[in-house]
């Protein structure tokens, strides 16, 4: 490997380090066999679940299923799991094969490696998320009439795309902390799914509300609400802010640990 690097390195010397890191990470992610399947999977899973739920929602009132826009985006709850896998692979795959040693030898600025991975994963997830969310929203309107006004719908869909990007960043940060792909995806899915379950089982309304406010998924998906905003445990943008805090917090801890620990 070292001879290969010795051959390749001079050609990169002319470029700025950041671009070089990005180019390396982009090549790795692009050529990994599972990436394209996961991107397709994000779109298919999100749209399929959204349509299944929207088509089966009983419409006994003018406004279907409580909040039609939110209901039409239900598939995100499955799609985010695939986003998490994609992000976990981008970091955890290297720990699994030991390639991380080569990566860090070639790119010694470790925080820079993590940032490059985060940026590249975001660039891959963004179009998939945009397509998945837009298709879900449009199909949802077909099955569930009575959606709210355009500004609210745009906030819900745009916010959902941002939410999926943040879940990718959260997964990257967690994987950098845990350094094991399987354990990392377990941690991420537990963080996402456990808060709403615990909240629903909490017999105390205050605890329920607090659990919904701090959970990365329950808070972040508040951005999907278009009706009854005053009854939400947390406001739409504030909720997305909670998810962002989780994501960037995990990235920060991951970067610090990456710098401090022996890979």
């Amino acid at each position, binding site marked *: 490997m070292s001879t290969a690097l010795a051959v390749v390195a001079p050609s990169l010397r002319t470029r700025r380090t950041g671009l070089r890191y990005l180019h390396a990470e982009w090549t790795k992610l692009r050529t990994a066999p599972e990436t394209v399947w996961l991107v397709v999977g994000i779109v298919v899973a999100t749209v399929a679940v959204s349509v299944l739920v929207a088509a*089966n929602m009983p419409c006994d009132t003018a406004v279907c299923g409580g909040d039609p826009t939110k209901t039409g985006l239900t598939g995100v709850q499955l799609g985010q799991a695939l986003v998490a896998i994609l992000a976990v692979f981008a970091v955890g795959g290297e720990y699994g094969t030991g390639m991380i040693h080569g990566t860090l030898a070639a790119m010694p600025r470790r925080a820079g490696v993590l940032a490059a991975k985060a940026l590249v994963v975001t660039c891959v997830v963004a179009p998939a998320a945009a397509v998945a969310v837009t298709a879900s929203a449009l199909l949802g309107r077909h099955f569930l009439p009575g959606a709210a006004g355009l500004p609210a719908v745009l906030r819900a869909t745009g916010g959902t795309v941002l939410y999926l990007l943040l879940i990718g960043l959260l997964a990257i940060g967690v994987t950098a902390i845990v350094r094991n792909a399987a354990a*990392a995806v377990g941690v991420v899915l537990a963080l996402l*799914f456990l808060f709403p379950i615990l909240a629903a089982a909490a017999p105390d309304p205050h605890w329920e509300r607090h659990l919904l406010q701090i959970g990365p998924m329950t808070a972040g998906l508040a951005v999907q609400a278009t009706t009854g905003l005053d009854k939400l445990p947390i406001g739409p943008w504030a909720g997305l802010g909670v998810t962002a805090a989780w994501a960037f917090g995990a990235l920060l801890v991951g970067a610090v640990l990456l710098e401090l620990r022996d890979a």
Partner: protein
Amino acid sequence: MSAYARLVHAEWTKFRTVRGWVIGMLVAAAVIVGFGLFPGMEGTCRGANVCGLPVGPEGQEVTDVFTFVHRPLTGDGTITARVASMTGARPDLTDSGTGDVAGVVPWAKAGLIVKDGTRPGSAYAAVMLTGAHGVRLQHNYVHDLAGSTTSAATPRWLRLTRAGDRVTALESADGVSWTGIGTVRLTGLPATAEVGLFVTSPQFTKVINASSASGAPSKATAGFDQITTTGGWPAGTWTVATGGDPDAVGGPGAPGGPGDPDVGNRGPAGGSRPNGAEETGGGFTVTGSGDIAPAVAGAAGLGTSISQTLVGTFAGLVLVVVIGAMMMTGEYRRGLIRTSLTAAPRRMTALAAKATVLGGVAFGIGLAAAAVVIMFGPDILRGNGIYVHHVSLATEVRVVAGTGALLAVAAVLALAFGVLLRRGTVAVTVAIVATVLPYLLSMTVLPIAAGEWLLRLTPAAAFAVQQSTPRYAQVDGLYTPSNGFFPLTPSEGFGVLLAWAVAGLAFAAYRFRRRDV
């Protein structure tokens, strides 16, 4: 030592020497116990506000609140009356509504009753016209027998005859030709029973989806006429007893623990008529609110069930599933699988040994954690003022053993995914998405019917082993997973998970045998 026993020993050695897995299993037990004994939940049943539900003759906790126009009957006798009219009022629970709307709720009841005194929870048999379920013969709270499907708008003649400990109910459209509904036996009914007319109307609940519902007490008014009695009726007048006021425990507005904040108790439906009865030219007009039925746990009912203390099972499940998948994918990751299969060339035995160790450990920690939670969790909730329904020892044992078995079989399913997919990340995701996500979706966003199908078909069906209180067809409740109710029985639900695990393991074994490592 047989090859299988030798391999189990080898797998056990592998398992116990991976520090992360041992810690993970211990943490799984700790989170189940931690959430079960979580001290932060507060209820209103404390201090002077002692919550207690009357217990029916067959041991169930019951609601026994109604308006009762009665006289003592000594020995055998018959009462006949016509329910000439039945109307009701329920709160308007639409977004814009504030007051009451007219309407009889489906399980509003008006009819005749033979009861062992007026003590709440005493034995009874009653024939009644209901809001939307026709004529019924019910006794001792949990038994329900259907008669004709007469609507509440149609006058109906009802007759109740006591002979010894047997009570027979008949109904008629015209008071001339009578149809029998059935005969029930009330064991130990004393010679003198309270017999008469009753009206009651249960909490009206509007379900929005599985996680939100709103409810408020409703009220029913029935006009009785053509009242005739034969048999051992001493001379005397009718006494009117009104069931506890709506805020009393056992009353329709009782806070069943703090409940779901989405269940707004908006106070009793006012209406023009207070609960009670007035005599109207040879008959009575009776207004009542409450129910004579088993008490149901959950957001629309009263209190909570022991199932709620086991919510940490989800966190434990995620950990166990991760360890289960990694037990297999870890071997692929480092190429250890080649060494393992060189040492143990009989692959089926090797797989069986892995499943045995994993399942055994998961069962053990699940059993121990659930046992601790069921022993102490409900008492802690009660200490914090939350009403927890009592369950039999057999139910507790089933819930505890079921929780252990649920973790064990789910872990083995994850192991099978690990063999099939060979990548830890994918195997873990598939296992978590298959077991936890269906429960989450059915609880939060899906309409109840769709959610129930998910909980019949996916491995998440196995959470039915944790259901501790039964659902009753004759009580409209919020029978949802988050309130501890599942669409399948415990054994059926567990059977679904078992079928998934057996199928997964069989397919994994087939693939494992056929392919190169």
